């Protein structure tokens, strides 16, 4: 079986492989992934990830399993529901949960980006088809949505039965859903949000924003359940929230371990673990929890021994998200001697909101979402970034500015000005695309990152805290 070595590398044991054998073979056949592709993927996993950590390997395995589930969903008689990234936390899981195994609710583009992008390096042709069909290149259009369109067009993933369209974060997900509605006649449930906020309102959350968002979540949940012929019930919601919180507590523990000097693992490895929470389908969630529970003691051990991929005393930065299409940028950062103990998307801001003050379950959800900051405002992102500088003892910020992401168009530049002026630490903006590495030059990036590493090291040596201090 040509795929066994890769799956074992990704934390699958023999019994699990045997159990899923027919599904795996069917999915790999449909994806045209043969022995050669498996060898290439093995090589990429070995070179790209910290494979001494079984938790990381298991997480990669969960993504592969999640991909197989999407590919086969329609053939296995499931109703398929798609939502966009970044998703409303837990919505996909809740919808899946009421389906009792007969509904698959996922964000397919993110799963494809990790499996066919990071692991198999076969994503560019999918993005190109997305560009041909719906979103032309060079126009500030998100690669994730190109992936969704490209993958459906190429028949890699099925046309869904329902779309959960939302503008919680970005209009482009909604526009992709419009395209799917127009071309394939897919029905949708639309959930709206008010993004506008007063600067500096955060961390206070305006009650009207919570109640509006809660109303949209609740209406969307009820409408989606009805359209899928299911009964929405709060017990399912509650049960899923508990599962979700269990994972979140694991993330929080990892974040705590990442405060160590040196951090025990490079951030790009953690991204594949953490994003399981937001994206992976419900039936893989226990595996995701197993991956994080495997990882925690492994990291504790490293912290106890004082080891990590970089030496103690290396400069520490935060970022928004390390490009994950492949590990090249992460490796350039690491080779420049820069540690990334935390990224914005993995910051445990929201884990501190395990007990929101709101009363209804929808309002609690809304309160948590707004508290994360991403759905709130740039000022909220700035608030949490400043807190991360303090909590993780950071020396600078290496902000990955996604040039094709409209919601993030100005945040990096606002953040650079504010952080340099208020905290006096250097900020480097790297213009990238987190999901599509065709549009930036690794070499140019290397020059910037190496210079930034030097700048941070030199400042550490001199004990400087103010870049204007000369």
């Amino acid at each position, binding site marked *: 079986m040509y795929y066994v070595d890769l799956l074992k590398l990704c934390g699958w044991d023999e019994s699990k492989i045997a159990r899923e054998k027919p599904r795996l073979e069917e999915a790999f056949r449909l994806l045209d992934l043969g022995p050669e592709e498996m060898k290439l993927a093995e090589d990429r996993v070995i070179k790209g990830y910290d494979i001494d950590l079984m938790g990381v390997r298991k997480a990669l395995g969960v993504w592969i399993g999640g991909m197989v589930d999407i590919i086969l969903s329609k053939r296995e008689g499931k109703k398929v529901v798609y939502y966009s990234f970044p998703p409303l936390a837990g919505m996909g899981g809740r919808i899946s949960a009421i389906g009792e195994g007969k509904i698959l609710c996922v964000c397919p583009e993110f799963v494809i980006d990790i499996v066919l992008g990071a692991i198999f390096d076969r994503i560019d042709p999918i993005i190109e088809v997305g560009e041909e069909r719906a979103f032309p290149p060079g126009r500030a259009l998100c690669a994730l949505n190109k992936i969704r369109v490209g993958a459906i067009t190429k028949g890699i993933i099925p046309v869904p039965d329902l779309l959960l369209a939302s503008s919680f974060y970005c209009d482009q997900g909604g526009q992709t859903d419009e395209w799917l509605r127009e071309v394939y006649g897919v029905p949708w449930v639309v959930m709206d949000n008010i993004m506008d906020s007063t600067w500096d309102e955060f961390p206070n959350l305006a009650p009207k924003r919570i109640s509006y968002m809660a109303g949209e979540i609740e209406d969307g949940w009820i409408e989606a359940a009805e359209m899928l012929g299911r009964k929405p019930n709060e017990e399912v919601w509650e049960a899923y929230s508990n599962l979700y919180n269990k994972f979140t507590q694991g993330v929080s523990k990892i974040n705590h371990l990442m405060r160590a000097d040196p951090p025990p693992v490079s951030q790009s490895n953690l991204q594949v673990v953490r994003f399981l929470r937001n994206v992976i389908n419900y039936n893989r969630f226990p595996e995701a929890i197993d991956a994080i529970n495997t990882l925690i003691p492994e990291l504790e051990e490293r912290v106890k021994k004082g080891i990590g991929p970089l030496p103690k005393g290396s400069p520490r930065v935060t970022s928004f998200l390390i490009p994950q299409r492949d590990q090249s940028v992460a490796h350039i950062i690491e080779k420049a*001697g820069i540690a990334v103990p935390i990224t914005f998307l993995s910051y445990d801001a929201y884990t501190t909101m395990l007990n929101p003050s709101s009363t209804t379950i929808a309002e609690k959800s809304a309160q948590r979402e707004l508290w994360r900051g991403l759905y709130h405002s740039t000022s909220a992102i700035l608030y949490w970034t400043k807190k991360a500088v303090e909590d993780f003892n950071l020396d600078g910020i290496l902000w990955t500015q996604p040039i094709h992401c409209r919601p993030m168009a100005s945040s990096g530049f606002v953040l650079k000005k504010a952080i340099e002026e208020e905290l006096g630490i250097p900020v480097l903006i790297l213009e990238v695309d987190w999901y599509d590495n065709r549009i930036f030059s690794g070499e140019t990036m290397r*020059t*910037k990152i190496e*210079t930034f*590493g030097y700048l941070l090291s030199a400042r550490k040596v001199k004990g400087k805290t103010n870049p204007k201090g000369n």
Partner: protein
Amino acid sequence: MFVCGLDIGAATTKAVILNDDKIISYAVLPTGQSVKRAVDKVIDEALRKERLNISVFDSVFSTGYGRHSVNFADRAVSEIICHARGAHFLFPSVRTVIDIGGQDSKIIALDGDGNVNNFVMNDKCAAGTGRFIEVMANVLEVSIEEIGKLSLLSLNPCSISSTCTVFAESEIVSLRAKGEPRENLIAGLHKGIALRTITMGHHIGFSKDVVFTGGVAKNAGVKKFLETIIGTKILVPEEPQIVGALGAALLAKAENFKREVVLQTGPGPPY
């Protein structure tokens, strides 16, 4: 103590040989297709001028896009750090370096010791770099040596709105067809380059003294527009193309500096 700095750029490869604090030889050659061949040739030429042998070097540092391809270099250092070091060596009063090379441009803010405090660098597009000027010189049938001087003759620079090399070329062709004098077209291009450079560096500022390095610093037209827009005189080294290689050589010599950083941060590559 003989040290060598190599700057392998997109367009040219440069070598500088230092003996203690004195530049004893340098060479500049096109990079061409093979970095290895360019490096061998440029070192040979620099050594030959002083009748030296390669075994004379105590240390060799490399910089530029091809810095990681030089197997025998003791260390590869980013060109931003090297340009800062080289400019500070030549002009100790420098606080800002504008470096425009073959395919990129950078604005570097320095402290009084020649350390980088802040920097910006283009990375998405080669408009406003040496390659851009080469393409336009070709379109206007002017030699790269003459293009700067010609622009100084213009009293009324054209407005070239496009930032893309290909579209700017179309704009030039169209304006030329309308009878616009060549010097006005060239001056318009140079003004555009200066404006783009200054926009890029706006948020880190242009503290005095400002030093202009890289091949484009030889272009008197670009220099004039930069000075006019920034409102300050700009210093240009006698040979602006070798400043990066000079910085690499200075870092190769500054063993104490190197060790200090390495000791504090462990064995990672602090440059």
